[in-house]
Structure formats: C-alpha cells, structure tokens
C-alpha cells in the first residue's frame, strides 16, 4: 500500500526521482528569486512613496494656512493616498513603524529637495508598514500644525512580469523533457538486453546484441553474447550427436530390411519389418529435429490455405477412418512467406497429433489481423492434463506411454513443429478446450 504510487519500471522510477528533484529545485529557486525581488520592490516602493508624500508636504507648506483644507480635499480624491490637517500627532490603532524601516524612509525623505528655506518639518513620525498595507506619515509643520498623509501601498508581486512565468514554465518543461529523454536513452540497453534474452529463449540462433555504447553496457552485451554462443555450441553439439547417430543408423537399418526379405517365416518377417519401420520413424524424426536448427531452405511465397487443405487430404489418405472428422474452415487462399517444406512439416505434425490423440482435426484459418495470422487446430480427444501442457513441447517427452506405443510417437513432433514456427517468427500454444479436446493455436507473422 505504501508503494502504491511507486512505479514498477526502472525508466519510470528514474524519471520520477529526477522529476521530483527538478520540482524541488525549481520551487526553491522560485522562492529565493521571489524573496530577493520582494526586497528590491519594497525598497523602490518606499522611495516612491516617500517622494510622493514629501511632494504633498511641500505643496502644503507653500500654501497659506487658510487655503490648506481646500487643497487637501483635492488630494483626498486619489485612490491610494489621503491627507488631512491635524492639531497633533495621530492617535489610533496604527502602530509605530519599526525603527529600522523608519530610517530608510527618513533617509529618502531627507533626500527630496524642498526648494524652500525654512520649510523643513520639525518632526516626521511614521506609523504602519507596507506589510500592513498602510503607511502613515505625520509631519510636524514649522508653524506648529500637523499634516497626516496616509498611503495604501500596493502589495508587491515578485513573480509578476511579462516574460517571467512563460520563461519559467518553458525552462521547467525543457528540463523535464530532457531528463525523460536521457532516462529513456540510458534505460534502452536494459530493454535491449531483456528483448535479446527473450529472443534467445525462443530461438538460439537469434542475432547477437550490438556491443556498442557506454563501457558497462558494452560489457554486459559482450557477456550476454558469449553466454548465447556457449548455449548455441551446447545445443549444436547435442544436435550434431543426434544427427550423427541418425545417419549411422541408416546403414544397419537398410541391411536389416534387406535381410528381412530373405526370412522364411512370413509372420516373423512382417513383425521385423514393423519394428524396422518404427526404428526408421524415430531416426527420421531425430534427423528432422536436428535439421531444423540449420534450415537452409529458401523462404518462398506460399498459399497457406491450400497447404492446410493438402495436409488434411494427406491425413485422410493415411487414416481413412477419420476422414469425416477432418475439416477446414477459412479463406480459399492466403499468401504467406515461409520455408515451404518446413512449414508443411510443422503443420502436418500438429494435424497428425490431433488425429492420433484426438481422433479428429478441425482447422480454422483466421483472416490476418495486426500483421499476424492465426490457425486453430482442434480435436475431440481427452485433452492434456494441465500440468503437461507445456511439457509436451520438450523433446522426447511422451504424454501417455500406453497410447504412444500404439501410435508410434517418438516425442519429437511437437518440438519440431514449435522450432519451425518460432524460426518463422511465430509460435504455437496448446490449450484444453472447455468442451474437451485440445486446441493448438498457431500464430505467424504475415
């Protein structure tokens, strides 16, 4: 709960930290700038105010006493400034101005030239302050009268300026944009590494990572590529071994088949040929499995719809008893780029599997969507125990021993199919259908 707003991605986290930092720095900058400007503004305001007020004083001093009231009435019309004559210093709620501030005002007041001799005030008392939004100047005139001038200073607006806010926002946005861009760039190698690891999992012959960029990234990429090369070598060694055994078995199997022809006992001969057939199936499956990794077949344009129907035709020829349970649904034609024989083998394996274990095969070819075409091959069998769903793709894995014996599976059909489909940039997934039976979903880029 505490981490509700803590994003999961490294890029998002780094960006968030950077943006929070940026916000703090910008806020602090704004405050410092504001306080600084406030001082400047206040000083200017004090000077302006004092000069205006002293101007009023000067006019009053130069005016004969009887006409002063009328004159002041004129001043009283100003919005932020009012003046009145009085017999004594002001009495009221306004407190005296702090001494330090008073000095500033008095210095300004003294600097204003009066232009008349004998006109200098006997005393100048100050009340209020700009913070209280009211300043009261009380002049003791040379003739003994008092002049009270009250000013309502406008509150200073330190962040107000024609360009200030625009510039500030632009700067912030630019900094935020740059940080996000930098984060994305820095994180990119991590993403590339994750993508490469994913690709390696699907296809050991995936292209290597580029070993460029900053030292650490280059090192990680090099280490990854080395690891991939080691895995490749390991897989290649194993495949080579399998292929070599497969090749070497061909001569003895051929000999045995020839020898069987000279056997007197018909029954024994038939049994022996059956065994040899089984052995040959295993060898050819093993060889096919070994060959996929280094497929040299060229990529051609291929009519996928026709290929699927051909596969069903052939399945029907080999197992005439299931002909009624083979069906194709989908467009009449669909062109796809693929290695024709490999693709045929992969899809044939899936159909054969459906026929052998599910007693039927219904193919549905969907119209391409989003650059991907989907093929569903369903059967009406028992389905696969959920725990086995992924294991059936392991080489030499056999689901149910007893059933396998009967159908003569080697446990390579599905791995071969998946290898081929992945080498085409696609994949195959098996799922149990709610109504029973297995659904193989093939996806291929188109």
């Amino acid at each position: 709960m505490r981490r509700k707003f803590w994003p999961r991605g490294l890029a998002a986290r780094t960006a968030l930290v950077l943006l929070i930092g940026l916000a703090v720095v910008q806020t602090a900058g704004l405050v410092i700038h504001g306080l600084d400007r406030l001082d400047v503004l206040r000083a200017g305001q004090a000077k302006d105010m004092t000069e205006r007020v002293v101007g009023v004083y000067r006019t009053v001093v130069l005016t004969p006493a009887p006409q002063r009231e009328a004159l002041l009435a004129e001043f009283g019309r100003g919005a932020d400034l009012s003046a009145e004559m009085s017999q004594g210093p002001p009495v009221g709620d306004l407190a005296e101005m702090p001494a330090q501030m008073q000095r500033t005002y008095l210095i300004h007041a003294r600097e204003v030239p009066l232009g008349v001799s004998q006109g200098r005030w006997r005393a100048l008392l100050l009340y209020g302050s700009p913070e209280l939004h009211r300043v009261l100047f009380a002049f003791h005139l040379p003739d003994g009268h008092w002049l009270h001038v009250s000013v309502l200073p406008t509150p200073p607006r330190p962040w107000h300026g024609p360009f200030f806010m625009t510039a500030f926002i632009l700067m912030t946005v630019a900094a935020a944009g740059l940080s996000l861009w930098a984060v994305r760039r820095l994180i990119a190698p991590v993403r590339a590494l994750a993508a490469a690891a994913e690709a390696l999992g699907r296809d050991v012959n995936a292209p290597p990572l580029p070993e460029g960029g900053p030292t650490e990234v280059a090192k990680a990429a090099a280490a990854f590529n080395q690891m991939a090369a080691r895995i490749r070598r390991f897989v290649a060694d194993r495949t080579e071994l399998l292929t070599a055994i497969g090749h070497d078995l061909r001569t003895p199997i051929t000999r045995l088949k020839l020898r069987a022809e000279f056997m007197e006992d018909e029954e024994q001969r038939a049994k022996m040929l059956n065994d040899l057939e089984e052995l040959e199936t295993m060898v050819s499956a093993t060889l096919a499995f070994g060959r996929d990794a280094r497929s040299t077949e060229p990529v051609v344009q291929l009519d996928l719809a026709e290929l699927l129907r051909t596969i069903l035709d052939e399945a029907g020829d080999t197992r005439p008893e299931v002909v009624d349970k083979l069906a194709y649904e989908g467009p009449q034609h669909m062109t796809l780029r693929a290695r024709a024989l490999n693709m045929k083998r992969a899809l044939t394996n899936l159909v054969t599997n459906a026929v052998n274990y599910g007693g039927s095969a219904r193919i549905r070819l969907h119209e391409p969507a989003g650059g991907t075409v989907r093929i569903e091959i369903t059967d009406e069998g028992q389905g696969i125990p959920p725990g086995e769903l992924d294991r059936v793709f392991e080489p030499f894995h056999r689901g149910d021993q007893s059933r396998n014996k009967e159908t003569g599976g080697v446990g390579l059909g599905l791995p071969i199919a998946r290898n081929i489909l992945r080498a085409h940039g696609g994949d195959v997934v098996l799922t149990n259908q709610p109504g029973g039976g297995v659904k193989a979903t093939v996806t291929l880029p188109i």
Partner: protein
Amino acid sequence: MDPLPHILVVDDDREIRDLLARFLEQHRLRVTTARDGKETRRAWDNGNYQLVVLDLMLPGESGLDIARWLRSQSNVPIVMLTAMGDETDRIIGLELGADDYLPKPFNPRELLARIRAVLRRAGEQPDHRREEPVDGYSFAGWKVEVARRRLLNEDGVEVMLTGGEFDLLVALLERANRVLTRDMLLDLLRGRQAGPYDRAIDVAVSRLRRKLEDDGRNSQLIKTVRGGGYVLATQVERV
C-alpha cells in the same frame, strides 16, 4: 526370351551391395555391384546396363560426381538413394537427370517397384530421354518447376502439392492434349498413394483440379474423357 535387365548397384557398404544383389536377382534382375567411382567406371566399360542404382552418400568421390560422369556417357536411367529427406541432394540429383530417388533406409520392395517402373517407362520410349532435359512447364498462367517439385501460380506463390499430385500433373504435362487412361496414371502413382487404387486417381485428379482452380463440374484444364481417362487440354510450354 528377353535377357534379364542388367542393373548396376553402386553403394559403399559391402553387405548392402551383396544383399541387394541377392534380393534383386531373386526378382529376375541381373545385378553387378560397384563400391566407388573407380569400380563404377570399370564395371560400366565391361557391361551394358539398363539401369543404375546409385547411393549419393559415398566416401571419396560423391554419388553426384558419378551421376554426372554417367550422364556424360549415356542416358542410362538412374535411381538415386538419398539421405533421408535431404532436399538439396534430391534436387541436385533430379537436376542432373536422375529418374527417381528413394530415401535411405529404403524398403527393398519399394525399390524393386521403382526400378520396374523406370525400366518400363524407358522401354516404352526407346529414346526415353528427351534431347533437352525439361526444367519446367508453364501453362494457363501456372508454372511447374520439375526438379524442385513446385507449382507456382501467376503471382509466384507456391501451391503445395503432394508427391502423387505432382507426379500426376507432370504426367499430364508431358503428354498434354493426349488422353491418359486410368491404368497409365495408376502405373505412375504406384506406391505413392494409399487407399484403394481405383479411387486414388479420381481423388488425386479432383484435388489437382481444386488446386488449379479448375472447377470440377466445368473443368477446362483437366478434362474427363468418357470411357475412363483424363486429358490436360491447354497449351503447355517447356522451359
């Protein structure tokens, strides 16, 4: 009485040579064996062979080299034994002009059937080999690549054919505009198609029509001939 057809078997494994010779001799064929290129040439000079069974996977001089040499000598039919499902070998072999191929390990009876079929075809056409080997055909917008066993439509998209369908199509193309009886076609498809033979041809033809987009009711390309046969009725170009 015809003399027995003389077959030259080239394989590097002595046991296979001996067993194969015994087996084929049992089935009324005369057999000479050779172990490698050298022995093949010597045997060739000393005999008159109607057919050569050639293993492509020989140590030293390869089967393909021997096939090339044989072709330079004569048009003798060649049945190749290839690595299982090895496309490259098969394609090169067929391009060199082999007449048939069989993946190893082969079924001896199937080999015998293939040998008989090739001999029969060679017998039908005394000069069974055309002056120029045909790489492919084009007809009605379709293209056929013989060695690669591919059918391509107008856009160059491959339409997958089964082995039997392809053989049937090539048979029709070779004898375009001539009626082929079911029996002749059956002979061509022997060993390829499972199921009852009499139906196999009709099934293969109907599938071929579907793939050639040749409407079954109103077929323009592969026409049914009353009295049991088919004819490919279109202009065929050899390329």
